[in-house]
């Protein structure tokens, strides 16, 4: 009798079964696609659904409570601009969270970079492109420093960034210090959050985005199918393309209406900050899903030791995550500065960071690493911004404001949790 191994005759049994991978070759029907999606949901993989649900529910709620104002073009434009700084900050945090790290200093880094921007413009008097670049470069350098402490020295990121959270508050105070606040009157910087893309150009941009997305998705589907690779059913692709196009054109249409409250003036078009965020979203999504770097981010977040054994330079990935996070924090700071046209010594301190992390998590990013997307930041940021926006319209007392914000946040998070819990026993 010859042990565990098998003779050639035994290996090919009487009926050779199919060779596996049948899941990859199926050409799904519409019904199959829908069933597959429902199964996925039931399996606890909700993707963007909780955040989208949150947006819809909150939207309906506030529309009912403030019918005349919440759903107006003016308020929607406000909402989008209000949400951009947090979205950009959260996008950066997604990279750090993907690795299972945290960056408590991201908020104050945005403050430091704003301070640099302001002082360069006001005290030194450089031109705006240089000032903007310098602010972002400051962020990148800070990120490299943070990342080295975490990735090379190996201090837990919570402690590093807690220390920097404190330290950078001092730095901002020092830079802004003597004047109290630094007003930034530079027209281009101001325009970012306060001016709008001309209406026609807005439509053109929207069309470019929608059409190229559709073209790309369909081309990809065809090429996958033709090579008999795993591919989603066509219906799903079409539905997704149509939905995205609807959102893009819908938003553009709303923002192209004149939303001025005073009849005399003209206020229409997409605020510049919005295409900026869309651009960042596309760029970061590309980086995360289609490049080696992005793939390695997920690998390090999922299992750093496996990534190391696979020859990935884990240290470099860690450093880069913080560089990206801090650079985006700088951009977030620029947007915030643009909005107020000034920088205060406490810029980016307080709850800024917690809100941004909350946004990423509500969008679907895991704090334990390995799961997260750039779009999570956008969707989660929108949820957070809607809460503040709607509560502002309601004008409730300060204490209620705190309580309601907390409550809504909790609610948004429990949708996700309850759904995932069903699958809790299958995955750890």
């Amino acid at each position, binding site marked *: 009798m010859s042990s565990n191994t098998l003779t050639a005759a035994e290996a090919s049994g009487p009926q050779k079964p199919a060779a596996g991978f049948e899941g990859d070759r199926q050409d799904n029907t519409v019904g199959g696609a829908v069933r597959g999606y429902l199964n996925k949901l039931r399996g606890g993989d909700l993707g963007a659904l909780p955040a989208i649900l949150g947006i819809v529910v909150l939207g309906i709620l506030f529309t009912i409570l403030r019918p005349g104002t919440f759903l107006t073009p003016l308020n929607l434009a*406000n909402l989008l601009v209000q949400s951009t700084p947090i979205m950009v900050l959260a996008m950066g945090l997604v990279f750090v969270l993907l690795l299972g790290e945290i960056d408590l200093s991201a908020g104050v880094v945005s403050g430091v970079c704003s301070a640099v921007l302001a002082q360069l413009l006001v005290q030194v008097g450089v031109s705006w492109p240089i000032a903007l670049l310098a602010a972002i470069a400051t962020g990148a350098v800070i990120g490299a420093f943070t990342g080295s402490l975490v990735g090379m020295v190996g201090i837990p990121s919570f402690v590093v960034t807690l220390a920097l959270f404190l330290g950078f508050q001092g730095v901002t105070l020092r830079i802004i210090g003597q004047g109290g606040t630094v*007003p930034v009157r530079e027209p281009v910087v101001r325009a970012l959050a306060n001016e709008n893309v001309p209406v026609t150009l807005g439509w053109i941009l929207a069309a470019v985005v929608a059409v190229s997305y559709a073209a790309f998705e369909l081309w990809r589907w065809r090429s996958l199918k033709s090579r008999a690779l795993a591919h989603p059913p066509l219906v799903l692709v079409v539905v997704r393309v149509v939905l995205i196009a609807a959102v893009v054109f819908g938003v553009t249409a709303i923002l192209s209406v004149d939303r001025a*409250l005073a009849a005399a003036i003209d206020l229409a078009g997409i605020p510049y900050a919005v295409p900026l965020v869309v651009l960042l979203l596309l760029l970061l999504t590309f980086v995360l899903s289609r490049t080696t770097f992005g793939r390695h981010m997920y690998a390090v977040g999922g299992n750093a030791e496996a990534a190391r054994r696979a020859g990935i330079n884990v240290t470099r990935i860690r450093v880069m995550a913080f560089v990206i996070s801090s650079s985006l924090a700088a951009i977030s700071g620029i947007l915030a500065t643009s909005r107020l*046209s*000034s920088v205060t*010594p406490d810029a980016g301190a307080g709850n800024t960071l917690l809100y941004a992390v909350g946004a990423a998590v509500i969008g679907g990013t895991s704090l334990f690493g390995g799961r997260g997307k750039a779009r999570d930041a956008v969707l989660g940021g929108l949820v957070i911004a809607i809460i*503040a*926006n709607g509560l502002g319209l309601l*004008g409730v007392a*300060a204490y209620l404001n705190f309580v309601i914000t907390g409550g809504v946040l909790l609610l948004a998070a429990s949708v996700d949790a309850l759904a995932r819990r069903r699958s809790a026993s299958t995955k750890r």
Partner: protein
Amino acid sequence: ACGGDDDGGNGGSGGGGGGEAAGKIGVILPDTASSARWESADRPLLEAAFDEAGVEYDIQNAQGDAQQMATIAEQMITEGVTVLAITNLDSASGAAIQRQAEQQGVQTIDYDRLTLGGESDYYVSFDNTEVGRLQGEGLAQCLGDQPANIAYLNGSPDDNNATLFSQGAHEVLDAMDQYTVVAEQAVPDWDNQQAATIFEQMYTQAGGDIQGVLAANDGLANAVVSILGRNNAAGQVPVTGQDATVEGLQNILAGNQCMTVYKPIEQEANALAELAVALVNGEEPEVDGSVEDTEGDREVPAVLLDPVSVFRDNVKQVIDDGYQSAADVCTGAYAAACTELGIS
């Protein structure tokens, strides 16, 4: 290792070293967030005055944390401070500090804010309710007799001064029945970004039908102005402020802000310095009156100073006082206005 020793002008005690001298003055400033004045004005002014008087001193900032203020106070007493001036973060924690100081034989001064139920020996201040009154009167002046919808953007809900400012303003404006309050909200931590969102939502909710804004300080005022600017309404809606910051003065020069309340901090700082120096030298200080501590049921000898309303036509006064420099205020687009008003 990290620059632990005293750092020239920025550092604290003029003489360095420990508590060997008989007299030393301690000053604890409240925070760096509610107003820029503490670090940018009070500290240098007090340092200059103390240096001139040649006394030892130690000036610190509690960074908005009452626990930290108590710690600093303990440290100062340990260091041998004999006169302790504090700007309390709230009356009760201030009172605890003063009780402890008294136990250790340290004389105390309330600076800028009266510690109700405390043990302070003296009080030096602008009247905060008066600031609110001036803001109210200023807004009324800019609005005129026309009926108007006004919005209040108050300071941090957990800051007692914010409550006083708002009370003062209400005192004045509530009495005038041509005005309707259409919105009133407090801005947590005086956060300017949040202030912008809050005002933007007030404005949207009111359908733009707001004719005046009572903003508690220049930072909040600037948030309002930037939102109004986005709606092309800047300059048409008067906004109040406080602190006479560069930004506030520029907004006033540009016509985007109605007024600010200028508290000649130099006067206040000098008054404190004089008082403290006298005490540390064992002399009897001069005071102009006293205020009543309603909670402690006592009269506190006080030096009281008057805040000043600043409108476009008396911006010059702030600059002439040296409180802000023309170089900072009259940049770029504001140069013309400065020339027009004779500021240089």
